[in-house]
């Protein structure tokens, strides 16, 4: 009996990790919308585009924006500050984007801090993915 409970528990764990690995732009949008307390239809691609493009004063006086590294067209490859290629951010050009919630959260945390000097809200994250999802 104990054995069965143990196996059962492990099976549930396994399923939980399988679910976590199967994120998609749509599932992440749903999650962020829920966190923000709005329906998915309350996410705005145009607000997402503005977040992507708006330039902010950087630490060394130079303007910084998401587009600065990810380029004006998110379906194209970008460049890090050190000159390394960054694969496109738009799922249409790079299907691996927005398929791993932990990775997405990590980069939102870092890049929003760098560009906006604060974390992004759930609403902003949802808007951002809404916009990238419709980029062609």
């Amino acid at each position, binding site marked *: 009996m104990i054995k069965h409970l143990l*196996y059962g528990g492990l*099976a549930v764990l396994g399923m939980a990790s399988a679910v976590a690995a199967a994120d998609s732009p749509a599932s992440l949008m749903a999650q962020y919308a829920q966190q923000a307390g709005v329906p998915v239809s309350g996410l705005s691609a145009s607000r997402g585009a503005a977040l992507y493009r708006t330039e902010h004063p950087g630490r060394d006086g130079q303007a910084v924006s998401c587009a600065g590294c990810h380029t004006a067209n998110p379906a194209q490859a970008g460049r890090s500050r*050190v*000159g*390394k290629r960054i694969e496109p951010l738009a799922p249409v050009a790079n299907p691996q984007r927005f398929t791993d919630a932990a990775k997405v959260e990590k980069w939102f*945390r*870092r890049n929003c*801090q760098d560009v906006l000097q604060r974390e992004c809200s759930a609403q902003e994250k949802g808007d951002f993915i809404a916009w990238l999802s419709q980029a062609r």
Partner: protein
Amino acid sequence: MNYLLRGIGVVTAVGVFSLLAFSLPSGDAHGDGGGNVLPRTTNKAWQQECASCHIAYSPAFLPKASWRRLMGGLDQHFGENASLDPATQADILRFLEANAADSGTSRMGSRVMQSMGANQAPLRITETRWFARKHDEVSKSVWTRKSIGSAANCAACHRQAEQGVFDEDTVRIPKQ
């Protein structure tokens, strides 16, 4: 039903085990392949987390004390936020220390240490005396060429830097 459950259990146990294995400190160094080709050192977390913005700089380019300083300040990493969860950070630091310039695991490391003061712990490879000496033929204006941008962009000139190869044959300085 029992068998099914058990099957799932075994599969998951293997999954969980391999997950654990990945989160344990790992990392291997084999052979030094001559002075300018680095030993093939690998660590999953290091490869995953330290190669998004630049090449994964070999641990052999800096001493342990440098890596400790660098890993202690990832939230303000040369003006960028490169912060990690504490477990991943600790795993990577163990790997870096085990293969650092002063760990005695590579010839490259020994050379880096030859011109390093005992208490020095530079945060940049590109600020070490060893680096300056190796690159004394590269003029200042070259570093800021558009396709290079920064001396830290090793791969702009060392075409196989990602593979740890820094010998003469693979160097080509871009013209602009």
